[in-house]
């Protein structure tokens, strides 16, 4: 083996490898199940509100139906839609999926299961704390919670606890991977476990921004301990976190596409070295790009915006690597299944398997999401799309499709694996994947077009906007058509989830996690792709270099002059 001296620090002190017992696995599966259950419950409320928004935009205002549920306005519904879908569904699902996948990838129990359990409890308490003020219309500040809109303090503390809980879960993962490395000196870290740890490390760096915003600015201000806040500083800290948040949503999907999906279509991971390189590059480049969300802001020098725009082009690179490696891995599978020709092999992919089909469709939508993302991040093009409906059109292709549809696909093997029940049913799940695909295609096409041609503003109650014109109508009808398909798809998804969970049809044989094998197991993997130091320090250095001077400046000139407003 060419990798003997990889883990020199541990040489000579190897611990006895620990493998999970039935009780360990049961515990892990319970933890994962709770996380995923909370995630799916949140999503069920979040998507329902999305349907109301789509109808409102097309001129059908049904918000009076929601008043008995104490949802009093479009914007309170929109806050729920954003918080539940973009923050709760994603974070809880990712934590649950990672807990399961880490243990099965390492074939080692969690090193400190209580730590992971504590993380889940903290996240759950935080979620409840944040949910109460939103439901009482005391936190109608949308999921970006830009001050000086001022929510009830429980909203800020609740969201902070969700983040802190996810940190604790991350520590649980790091301890487990560390223990595995001690027990396996000289072996390289399994791909899935390594990339989970990279994602959580990126998350640790990213969330520092929002943690400072919450603890330093918003919580003392909402408690009345300080009279004012600095909106620009708060925005900058938010977007320090906001862009890597996007990668926190995306990387779990990438882990499935690289590390699991090839197996599901009888393929192999084409180039494990480049797959690992892509993840290290995400760790390096996810954070120092946040000012591309603030191109339109006053008070940030154009030079910094420009530097971040260029770095964003850099973070496009690992996604383009992914496009090649993943497609090549899937092609290997299609050819093994008898696929022929330059493109004819596509038909031989495992389209009949809903878990596979959903994730492949998610990838196709992500192509458009990625192209749109490069436009958004371009210093010069952003002014044509900033804060128009183009933006939600874009992120419904990324977090709403690449991430969410992939997670649906994962659910179609993970929920049977967790419950021991047969999927209810393959046909319904396939229909779910395809309706989501076409629904998002129409929805986001309408939103992109309405934004770039008509300049319609995002997150506005467009059906009641005095400046809306007849020219908007065709696009809004198109989005409504998409929303209708998405509603059908969502109903199918919840039917499959509930049906599988309650089903009496037990699996004939247990489902195990699909793990893609490397195509070329003998290919040497350079040691620098298995070493944490250079990448982690590199990420910290780049973040400090790209954010340090401007954040120092903003803190140095901080003006806590904005009192809070509750104008909803």
């Amino acid at each position, binding site marked *: 083996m*060419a990798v003997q001296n990889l883990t020199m620090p541990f040489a000579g002190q190897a611990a006895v490898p620990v493998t999970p017992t039935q009780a360990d696995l049961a515990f892990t599966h319970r933890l994962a199940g709770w996380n995923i259950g909370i995630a799916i419950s949140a999503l069920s409320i979040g998507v329902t509100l999305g349907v109301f928004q789509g109808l409102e935009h097309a001129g059908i205002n049904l918000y009076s139906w929601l008043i008995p549920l104490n949802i009093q*306005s479009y*914007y309170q519904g929109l806050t729920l839609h954003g918080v539940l879908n973009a923050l709760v569904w994603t974070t809880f699902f990712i934590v649950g999926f990672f807990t399961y996948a880490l243990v099965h990838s390492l074939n080692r129990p969690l090193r400190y299961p209580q730590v992971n359990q504590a993380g889940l409890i903290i996240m759950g308490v935080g979620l409840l704390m944040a949910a109460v003020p939103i439901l009482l219309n005391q936190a*109608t500040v949308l999921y970006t919670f*830009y001050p000086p*809109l001022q929510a009830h303090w429980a909203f800020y503390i609740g969201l902070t606890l969700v983040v802190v809980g996810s940190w604790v879960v991350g520590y649980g993962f790091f301890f487990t991977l560390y223990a595995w490395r001690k027990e396996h000196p000289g072996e390289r870290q399994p791909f899935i476990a390594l990339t989970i740890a990279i994602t959580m490390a990126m998350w640790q760096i990213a969330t520092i921004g929002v943690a400072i915003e919450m603890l330093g600015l918003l919580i003392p201000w909402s408690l009345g301990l300080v009279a004012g806040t600095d909106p*620009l500083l708060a925005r900058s800290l938010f977007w320090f976190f906001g862009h890597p948040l996007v990668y926190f949503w995306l990387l779990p999907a990438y882990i499935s596409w690289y590390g699991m999906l090839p197996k599901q279509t009888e393929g192999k991971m*084409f*180039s494990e*070295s*480049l797959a690992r390189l892509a993840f290290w590059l995400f760790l390096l480049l996810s954070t120092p790009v946040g000012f591309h969300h603030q*191109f*339109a*802001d*006053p*008070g940030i020098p*154009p030079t910094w*915006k420009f530097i971040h725009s*260029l770095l964003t*082009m850099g973070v*496009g*690179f690992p996604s*383009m*690597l992914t496009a*090649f*490696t993943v497609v*090549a891995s899937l092609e*290997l599978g299609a*050819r093994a299944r008898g696929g022929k020709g330059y493109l004819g092999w596509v038909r031989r992919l495992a389209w009949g398997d809903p878990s596979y089909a959903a994730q492949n469709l998610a990838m196709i939508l992500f192509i458009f999401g990625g192209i749109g993302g490069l436009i958004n991040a*371009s*210093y*010069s*093009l952003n*002014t*044509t799309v*900033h*804060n*128009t409906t183009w933006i939600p059109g874009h992120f419904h292709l990324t977090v709403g499709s690449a991430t969410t549809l992939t997670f649906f696909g994962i659910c179609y093997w993970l929920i049977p694996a967790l419950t021991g029940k047969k999927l209810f049913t393959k046909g319904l799940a396939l229909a779910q994947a395809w309706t989501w695909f076409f629904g998002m295609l129409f929805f986001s096409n309408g939103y992109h077009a309405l934004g770039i041609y008509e*300049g319609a*503003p995002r997150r*506005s*109650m467009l059906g*009641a*906007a*005095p400046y809306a014109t007849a020219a908007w109508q065709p696009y809004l009808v198109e989005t409504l058509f998409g929303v209708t398909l998405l509603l059908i798809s969502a109903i199918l998804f919840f039917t499959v989830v509930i049906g599988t969970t309650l089903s009496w049809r037990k699996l004939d044989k247990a489902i195990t996690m699909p793990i893609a094998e490397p*195509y*070329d*197991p*003998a*290919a*040497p993997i*350079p*040691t*620098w*792709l298995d070493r944490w130091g250079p990448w982690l320090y590199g990420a910290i250095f780049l973040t400090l270099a790209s954010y340090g001077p401007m954040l120092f400046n903003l803190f140095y000139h901080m*003006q806590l*002059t904005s009192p809070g*407003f509750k*104008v*909803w």
Partner: protein
Amino acid sequence: MSDALHQPPHQPTGEQTPDPMAGHEALHIDRYESLWIRISMTTLAVFTVAVIYASTAMGIQLPGMHMRLDPRVVATPGMSLFAEPKVTQIGDGEYEAYIRAQAQPWIFTPSEIHIPVGAKLTLYITSQDVQHGFHIDRTNVNVMVLPGQVTKTAARFDKPGVYNFICHEYCGIGHHTMFGQIIVETPEMIAEATATAEAEVALATGVGNPEKGQARFALCAGCHGLGGEGVKGLGKPLVDSAFVAGRTDAELVAFIKQGRALDDPANTSGIAMPPKGGNPALSDGDLLDIVAFIRTLQTQ
């Protein structure tokens, strides 16, 4: 790529195993993959060059550091450039405007800016309360408006017409009603506007058209309901309203023009009514039509 995929490049055959140290640090890259990497890098490099070209040679400017101020006194006369609506000519064909964004009621001050065709308009924009956005229709002006900061931006208007400027950042329950207009006028239009203004004064003493008014009422319906039945928590019912019955048309037009601020002691709804219901483009004649429509809702 099909040929390359048939055989793994490194068959684990024992004797061909490379020297452990050779290739130890080198990254093995497949031929097609290497081609793809070069394509990717070239694409991203072309994008980068395009962005640099656009922002230098084509002169696309983003807002930067301009000025900071205390948002608490932005609306206070004598303490701020933004207290009074201000549009001034600063040179030949050059104008500047100071715009103040405000929530509850959700308005820009000034909400209507008249400039002649071909003029260059420099804008200084700030907020007196929460974050707002500012996007002028059919232009590249698309900026954020933050309390405590002044956003400086500019545009040239070569075509006559009405350009909406719209708030595009969520700023509270009335966000979607927040907009204003830049009216770019030809000399003939300026003359005509004067004549129309006189006609509207005459109209205001006349009687409105309830059918036209019903069409205009769509805006009011956001808060008052489509049939004027009112919406709980937003607008009061206008059907059989004692308030309506007790006032003349001219008084009602004057009331709608002014709106009802939240701190008005007569405000019993708990929410502000913005001037002209949030649509600064409504003329006195339009308002009179709306009043005529509201009169049809009075059955007693």
